[in-house]
């Protein structure tokens, strides 16, 4: 038991140290949502009117509306980036040192996932502080109630990244993931516009948005920021987490997973 805890602590510590050492990564992770908040939201404030919808009890400014979406974006990028780093790690071998340690593999992968989520939550809070300075008001209790939502959505998106990293042999660069995962997930969701507005234009797109697991992640975060629980979103996110994590662990299983079936080592 102690072994498990020490191992988790070690993995989180390493992730945190790496994060501290890669200041560029931190800054770019922070600049991305801020650009959306400062520029995009300002520009679209007048174009997109957001009427009163749950959980808001009054008309809200567009920057208030997209804040949960941008939080989701931070976590989405984080999840994908850690998946990318895992493919990189696998090629570079540091994933191997993780996989050849004695604890069960599912535990190692879950620990790695938790470590990534911890880092993403740190980024989210820094973002929330800046958003607050920018005038995005969130009830004080919201900063607390959003935490469990962040853990869950972060785990779900991280598990998706983990799954991708097990299934994809090589990520040539980040562009592929951007094009095929991040952009579609981000845009076909409730992050930037309420779904009723999407439905006005295209009912089909609305259906796509409903299926996109990023939508419930954003909604879970949105409601929890106002101290409310969106049960449907909670169920969907939990279900997606279970499926993604299950498949990822399967993918990394030494005897049956994708990793095993893939062509062998290049040399040796």
């Amino acid at each position, binding site marked *: 038991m*102690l*072994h*498990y805890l*020490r*191992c988790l*602590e*070690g*993995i989180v*510590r*390493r992730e945190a*140290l*790496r994060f501290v*050492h*890669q200041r560029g990564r931190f800054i770019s992770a922070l600049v991305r949502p801020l650009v959306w908040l400062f520029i995009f939201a300002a520009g679209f404030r007048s174009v997109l009117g957001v009427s009163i919808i749950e959980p808001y009890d009054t008309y809200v400014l567009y920057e208030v509306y997209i804040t949960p979406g941008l939080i989701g974006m931070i976590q989405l990028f984080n999840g994908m980036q850690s998946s990318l780093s895992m493919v990189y790690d696998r*090629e*570079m*071998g*540091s994933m*191997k*040192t*993780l*996989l*050849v*340690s*004695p*604890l*069960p593999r599912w535990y*190692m992968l879950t620990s790695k996932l938790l470590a990534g989520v911890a880092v993403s939550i740190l980024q989210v809070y820094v973002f929330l502080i800046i958003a607050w300075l920018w005038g995005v008001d969130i009830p004080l209790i919201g900063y607390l109630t959003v935490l469990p939502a962040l853990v869950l959505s972060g785990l779900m998106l991280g598990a998706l990244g983990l799954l991708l990293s097990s299934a994809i042999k090589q990520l040539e660069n980040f562009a592929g993931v951007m094009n095929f995962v991040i952009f579609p997930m981000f845009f076909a969701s409730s992050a930037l516009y309420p779904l009723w507005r999407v439905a006005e234009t295209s009912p089909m797109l609305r259906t796509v948005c409903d299926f996109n697991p990023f939508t419930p992640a954003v909604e879970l975060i949105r409601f929890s920021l106002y101290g409310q629980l969106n049960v449907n979103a909670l169920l969907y996110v939990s279900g997606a987490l279970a499926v993604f994590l299950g498949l990822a662990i399967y993918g990394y299983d*030494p*005897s*049956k*997973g994708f*990793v*095993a079936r*893939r*062509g*062998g*080592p290049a*040399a*040796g």
Partner: protein
Amino acid sequence: MKGAENAIVPAVLEVVGLSHNFGARRALDHAGFTIRPGEFTVLLGQNGAGKTTLFSLVTRLFGSDQGAIRVFGHDVNRRPSEALKRIGVVFQQRTLDPDLSVRQNLMYHAALHGLSRRAAKSRVAEELARIDLTDRADDKVRQLSGGQARRVEVARALMHEPRLLLLDEPTVGLDMASRQSLLEHVRRQCRDKGLAVLWATHLIDEVDDESHVIVLHQGKVLDTGVVNEVVERAGTTTIREAFAGLTGSQLNGGKAP
């Protein structure tokens, strides 16, 4: 001469009838051998002979199609935990985190193996002293030379005091002097601590007179035993000739024959 002794000393690593395919390519073909405590065993083979595949199977990076691998009697596939905690690995690729310090890298590894922080700290101090890098403990790995980084990897693999050390082409990319010092360092561990070592290489001059060798070629173990036995069986005078005779091909490395 060692027959009677071998019968009672339990095997550290036992590989039996091990086969593995990648698609249509057969990477290992009924490979089998045994390693006992204190033995320095050189796994000799050209690039593509199946050395890395063998290492991946022994460390259960992936499971084998056929055959068995036992570490101190524990089947790697059935009881991976028991097997893995007795193994230390140095992979062919560099696997240290270049942005973290030497100490942080070693502490991370200790955590993966469940050492308490206090135990880990004292192990780090011991291992760093052994590899003569105590004064570099807080430098980033990026700042080390290739030879130093390799030594740190060996130290890391030994952090949890395994009984079996696997090294996959550890000297690749090192200059002559670093190569020699790494080899001596590992041989010393082998002698002093009774550590069993499996050292994969394609450089034939890394075999010395006391080594055991496993000749691996196209996924098959062609011969295995103490170096002079293998040479004798091949009817040659040097391991280089024996290897050439067995495999029908030459290995480079070291002095010309």
